[in-house]
């Protein structure tokens, strides 16, 4: 990289690393250190091809997703995932407390999914990407996205019987919208 490209790389990392780290930590089941490793590795990869990358963020995200679902990752030793204690109930109402407890349970069971299952849920429900885009990003078919998502949700229910209290009638993934904001370049 020449000096201008180095500046551009530093600028990109400064501007986008916090947002990318949020996704990386989710992909790692809430493990901040693993998320930082994942992001750092993706950025090292991007730095090596910086001159040829048109859309740096899309490129880094794609590496994050693919690193996480790659076969090697399945062989990686499982880390101990620390989960924060439930927030104090304080003066909040009973519903709020119940919802907060359910989210704590959900955090724990999300960390017990396989990397591939978790990545699918992050793409579908955090990034809100439609199935076709998830398929394109991960290099698999829409049918695979659909079945993996379905199995991931079923796995969550089996890991946490508390979730059975939630509405069982709506178990199909909700359709996501296509929402690419228009980008105008000077």
């Amino acid at each position, binding site marked *: 990289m020449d000096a201008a490209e180095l500046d551009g*790389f*530093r600028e*990109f990392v*400064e*501007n*986008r*690393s*916090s947002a990318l780290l949020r996704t990386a*930590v989710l992909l790692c089941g809430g493990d901040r250190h693993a998320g930082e*490793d994942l992001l*750092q590795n993706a*950025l*090292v990869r991007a*730095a090596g*091809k910086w001159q*040829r*990358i*048109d*859309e740096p*963020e*899309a*490129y880094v*995200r*794609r590496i994050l997703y*693919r*690193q996480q679902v*790659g076969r090697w990752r399945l062989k990686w030793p499982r880390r101990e995932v620390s989960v924060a204690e439930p*927030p*104090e109930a*304080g003066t*909040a109402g009973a519903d*709020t407390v119940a919802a907060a407890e*359910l*989210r704590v349970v*959900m*955090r724990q069971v999300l960390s017990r999914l396989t990397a591939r299952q978790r990545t699918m*849920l992050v793409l579908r429900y*955090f*990034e*809100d990407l439609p199935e076709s*885009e998830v398929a394109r*990003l991960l290099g698999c078919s829409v049918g695979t996205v659909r079945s993996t998502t379905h199995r991931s*949700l079923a796995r969550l*229910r089996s890991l946490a019987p508390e979730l059975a209290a*939630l*509405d*069982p*009638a*709506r*178990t199909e*993934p*909700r359709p996501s*919208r296509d*929402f*690419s*904001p228009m*980008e*105008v*370049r*000077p």
Partner: protein
Amino acid sequence: MNVEELVRETLREQAAAQGPAAPGLADRVLAVRRRRRVRRLASVAAATAAVVAVVVAVPMLDTGKGDVHPVGTVGRDGIHAHPDQTPPKDMIAAGRSALAAYYTESFVARTKDEGTSERTYRLLDTRTGTYRKDGRWSHVAVAPGLRTAAVLERSLPARRIGLLDLATGEVERWIPVDHGVGGLAFSGDGRRLVATTYAENPDAQFKKRNPLTGKDGWVGVHASPRTGFLLVDPAAGTATWSRVTNGPGVLGRADFAFTRDDRLLFARIVGSKDGMEQFYDLAGKPVTAPADERHLRWDVGARLSPNGRLAALGLAREVDGSPGRSYSSIRDPRTGKEITKVRGAQLLAWADDKRLIAWERVSGLEEPYRARLVLVTLSSEKVVPLSGTRMFDDDRETVEWEPVFVRR
């Protein structure tokens, strides 16, 4: 709620709880890359093999051409511009800063002698990348990262603070407070919230006769009803109140906000110069300004550059023409000495260390002032329009909309 919605909420909550990436990441990445190149020629040291192995084992990817473009993704220019839109309909952003919301302001008479100035917000729907009207709130502060906003209901001072999910528009949690709140601001890391407390609505206005003209007019409260602030931990739902004694320069609404390092608070005061600020510690005691913030102005929202080396200050020069050109001052934060001037009449937010989002005029100096959001660059005359030209009511001296910029 079903399982998918709970997954969505949990992931968002977990993401919002993450602090920013540690500084110096780019340099660490470049160092790892240099080491990796060296190690290709030498044997790999066992202690650091894991990191390198991870990199080597990444499946080979193409150059990224043809990649899809998920929400929030930006190209190298990092610009989302809509120069045909006023008020904006679609997301406006440049570099690290995004227009998270904007509001309009109007006067609402409650009785024949009393009323309030009220805001109506349009918030960025992060799922569609568009702005959506949400008339429920009198005051909104968006957390860095654009996932969550803290909101106050219409009646001020408010007795509870809502945490709003910007993707769904639903309040995820209410935090009851034992002091009435009138203003909100998040810390730079998004983990704390300062809620300014008031004994009465700080936006109340009263009909008074002007002794000079003999005509009735609406005027705001003179002595500020500000009582102090609550430091709120949004994740835990807890809040601690501190009393702040108002000095003579505290008038009307004077909301607190965090300094760059989140260790102190500041609020505007009216004094010998425009834009003056008073700083406070987190117990509410007045303190001297931090060395790098003592030259800043509360009415210039951009404040310090991301690397902290430059201070954005006020309008320094105007040049007539069609349209006219404005220049604002960029100063050394510690000495206050001007380093350069940059295009723009009002510097609103830094896009990165070299570019800022600003209001810049589209009219000549002799014409009524009309401005649009633009992206300006240090050491450059280049001005990139980001929004359409904002309308201005010359009779009422009110603007069509006010932007709220937040770090993405």
